[in-house]
């Protein structure tokens, strides 16, 4: 192989990032994260990423910042324990489709103070407004004066199940709501921390930074974050999934070898 030549200097300097000049007079939010990639290696114990940004607010009306980070969606199965003849047994599992593997919101104030129920529901902001579907025979009805309550064959239990998904995920630090997680460090300059626990799923994460004014979303900035295994962690994971049988045989041989080696070692001493 011929050593590749160093790339020629670019003929044209890439244009500088869009200036906010054109948007003077417009309320706008811009944000970035300290890391766009989270690498899971053998010392991974969770990660803490700082999301920072600026609010351009030429008006004199106050604005609120809401940060929403959601991890890759995946199906979730849930069982409910019921008491039968003195035993606690599992019900048949209920499948929820498309529950995010990670979900957090951080805001300057409690979400319910920032925007009304309908607005949050429409944008899907807040754990109470996550779209988690129980697919079988679901239909939408009006209940408790709220129009879109999804009822599946679970009937009224649906809400209990849904709450349980959120509660269990919150217990694992996978879902999180922080009503004062967005902190202004200077005028118009804010930061929020994204805490990924060690059990956070791998994949593509999407962050939305909303700017609300008078209960209306006025601007949004979208960011992405990749969580992936690297190095030996990735190699082992891929080996285990691509060639599962050879992997299994290798594990057994390794185990048998170590057993044999230990007994040799001990006999000598």
């Amino acid at each position, binding site marked *: 192989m011929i050593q590749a030549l160093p790339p020629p200097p670019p003929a044209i300097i890439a244009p500088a990032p869009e200036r906010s000049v054109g948007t003077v007079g417009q309320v706008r939010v811009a944000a970035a994260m300290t890391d766009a990639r989270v690498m899971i290696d053998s*010392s991974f114990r969770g990660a803490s990423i700082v999301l920072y940004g600026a609010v351009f607010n030429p008006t004199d009306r106050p604005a609120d910042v809401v940060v929403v980070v959601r991890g890759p969606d995946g199906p979730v*199965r849930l069982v409910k324990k019921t008491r039968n003849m003195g035993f606690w047994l599992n019900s048949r599992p209920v499948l929820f489709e498309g529950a995010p593997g990670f979900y957090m919101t951080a805001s300057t104030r409690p979400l319910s103070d920032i925007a009304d129920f309908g607005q949050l529901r429409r944008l899907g902001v807040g754990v109470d407004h996550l779209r988690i579907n129980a697919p079988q025979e679901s239909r939408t009805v009006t209940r408790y004066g709220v129009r879109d309550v999804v009822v599946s064959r679970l009937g009224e239990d649906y809400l209990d199940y849904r709450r349980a998904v959120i509660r269990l995920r919150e217990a694992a630090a996978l879902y999180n709501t922080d009503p004062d997680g967005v902190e202004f460090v200077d005028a118009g300059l804010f930061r929020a921390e994204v805490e990924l626990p060690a059990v956070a799923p791998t994949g593509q994460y999407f962050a939305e930074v909303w700017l609300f004014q008078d209960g209306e979303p006025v601007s949004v900035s979208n960011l992405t974050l990749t969580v992936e295994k690297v190095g030996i962690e990735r190699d082992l*994971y891929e080996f*285990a999934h691509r060639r599962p049988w050879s992997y*299994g045989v290798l594990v057994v041989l390794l185990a048998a070898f170590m*057993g044999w*080696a230990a007994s040799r070692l001990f006999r000598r001493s």
Partner: protein
Amino acid sequence: MDIYLPIAEVSVNWPFLVLLGATVGFVSGLFGIGGGFLMAPILIFMGIPPSVAVASQASHVVASSTSGVISYTSQKAVDYRIGGVMALGGVVGALLGVELFRYLRLLGQADMAVAVSYLLFLGAIGTLMLYESLGQILRRVRGEVLPHRERRRPLWLYGLPLKMRFPRSGLYISAIPPFVLGGFAGVLSAIMGVGGGFILVPAMLYVLRMRAGVVVGTSLFQIIIVTAMTTVLQAGRNQTVDIILSTLLLVGGVVGAQYGARLSGRFRPDVLRAVLGLIVLLVGIQMGLELFVRPSDLFAFAPGVTE
């Protein structure tokens, strides 16, 4: 001191895992059991997904049992002939067990099945062992003459076809009972992540009436074959074997098993059986408790969604 496990996808304290492996290995060498029944509950308690815990510890059982069998072989305390028949049954049992476990996971009943099997099998075996060995210890302490043990085996053992000679065990019986016994242990190995030693040892002693000296070594031999099979099947079918987890466990396990096997000669067998019976009973009750106690959360995630 933490390490991230690539398959289990959790971060754990690795010195603790090595220590856990050593402790369980020690118990395994001492009593001649795989020790899986002790480890699975602890791993699950640490937050490792049950399916990964059950599948990964099987290879720990392979290692500590290999190390144990080599020690017992040098003492001529392994009957490979009857062990082979049992292992054959065990392989068939493991195949059935892994499929059964997949099916139970799909039904969302895997944890129930694990709890019920722990309660039933460990509870019953533990009680029996404790009762029998305590009686023996009491008689010894009181200085009573031990009643001559009935050496006759159940008659049905002789009515079956396919008779084989097992000189080391002092047996001339049909191959069917050891085959079935091995098969049963194989099913349990897939569902409970155990080698099945706690079932095999008493059954070999009290039902087959094998020569006591070869029981432990032979059961360990059978356990190696069955758990090796289970590990490969779990890796191939369910991708739930974590090589880092199992390596950490078995580093401690092989060393612990050596010390355990060496020490086992120092204790009276009835005392050993009483202690083992107590441990087995306690673990069974602990695991079975979830069937009777109101859970703190009525809902739980059911694993087994194909990703």
